[in-house]
């Protein structure tokens, strides 16, 4: 691997100071499952690698009734799904956490790293988007909070500026009768990159037979993970029915702008968007009905 300096920091301020001083030549190291491969293969370079796993805020994960789930940017996927109350409350996020690589990757790989790596096929991003997650970003000028769907701007590029650091992902507390799911298509069951990934979230009415709102997000069918806002909005107020789901799936297909590459043709990907939108909506509805209003209260 190319030579670089290494610094392990213990506060956000220290990280920001180091990153800002290097003017684009420093890289944040969370789990390293993208960064170290990219540095080794020469797809990225760094004069300084700043290890943020010693910063408590980036390694914390807790649920707060008012603020929702605070997920430190560097918390590994394995810690997420090993925390039973949190795993039970957010099955739609765990769908993604348990799909990223194999277990040895999940022991290090974080949602923060997945988001900042900005792959169009990143599994956590559609799941985060449908949960209405926001990203807390710290920089020399202070902190700002942006919706996750606005973080990625191009393949491998985020809106973070040199000197900025993703601190935390905030996921709102699940509303009553909320359900979410993420699924992807891969030729192999495990250890593969999504040909298409789709996340869906719904909130149903008290009887569980109408949509109050819905969100659908797509992976690997555009330069960045995509919120298919119209497809989700079209469900609001509608009765839960096959026809409504079918209509949303068609609108999600229309929102996709897939390309043909070695993992699939554009036509195949567009078909998959339809299939996976239907499946994830059905899974989200089922979870919403099962969740009812109860588990929300169990969570501390």
């Amino acid at each position: 691997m190319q030579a670089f300096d290494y610094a392990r920091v213990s506060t956000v301020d220290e990280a920001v100071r180091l990153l800002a001083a290097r003017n684009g030549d420093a890289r944040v190291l969370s789990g390293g499952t993208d960064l170290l491969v990219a540095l080794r293969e020469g797809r990225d370079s760094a004069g300084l690698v700043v290890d943020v796993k010693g910063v408590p805020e980036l390694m914390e994960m807790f649920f707060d009734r008012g603020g929702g789930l605070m997920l430190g940017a560097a918390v590994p996927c394995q810690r997420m799904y090993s925390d039973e109350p949190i795993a039970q409350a957010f099955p739609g996020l765990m769908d993604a956490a348990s799909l990223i690589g194999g277990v040895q990757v999940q022991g290090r790989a974080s949602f923060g790293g997945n988001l900042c790596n900005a792959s169009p096929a990143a599994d956590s991003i559609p799941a985060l988007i449908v949960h209405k997650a926001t990203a807390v970003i710290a920089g020399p000028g202070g902190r700002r909070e942006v919706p996750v769907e606005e973080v990625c701007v191009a393949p491998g590029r985020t809106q973070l500026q040199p000197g900025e650091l993703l601190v935390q992902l905030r996921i709102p507390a699940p509303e009553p009768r909320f359900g979410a799911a993420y699924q992807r298509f891969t030729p192999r069951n495990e250890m593969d990159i999504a040909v298409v990934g789709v996340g869906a979230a719904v909130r149903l009415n008290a009887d569980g037979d109408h949509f109050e709102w819905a969100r659908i997000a797509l992976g690997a069918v555009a330069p960045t993970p995509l919120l298919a806002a119209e497809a989700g909005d079209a469900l609001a107020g509608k009765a839960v029915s096959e026809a409504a789901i079918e209509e949303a799936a068609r609108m999600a297909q229309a929102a996709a702008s897939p390309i043909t590459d070695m993992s699939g043709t554009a036509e195949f990907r567009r078909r998959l968007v339809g299939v996976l939108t239907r499946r994830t909506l059905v899974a989200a509805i089922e979870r919403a009905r099962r969740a009812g209003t109860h588990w929300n209260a169990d969570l501390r």
Partner: protein
Amino acid sequence: MSTKTIVHTTINGDPVEFLCEPRQSLLEVLRETLLLTGTKEGCNNGNCGACNVIMDGVLVNSCLVLGVEAEDATITTIEGLASPDGLHPLQQTFLEHAALQCGICTPGFLLSAKALLDRNPDPTETEVRYWLAGNLCRCTGYDKIVRAVLDAADRRDRVTR
């Protein structure tokens, strides 16, 4: 040239200090500095699991960890699996089930399997197969490996390590 750093670790129960450059992976340090060559290099990019070690209780690809990240860490490598009394139950069942041929993938599979049984002493076959999905073997076919892990889990009811 970046400067070398002294890193303090505990490896297989012994305190170990080593000197490394930030760009060196833990895998490189284990094999080339510490001469613990039981940990293997396959792909060097996280896909094959041959380099797996257990670091602070977590199964990791040592090719995707920097040596400098191991400061204060407790690490188990394949050299730490057997005890003076004999082989680890997993090593024993791998032998009995002929769960290896060339053997290059074996240390990684053993560490993965150990991490699984430490967490879940009684896994189902499906759980074993998913857990081992990040380990590649080009010789054996996975079935014998899965049988060996399930058998070791059964025997752990009697032998606990």
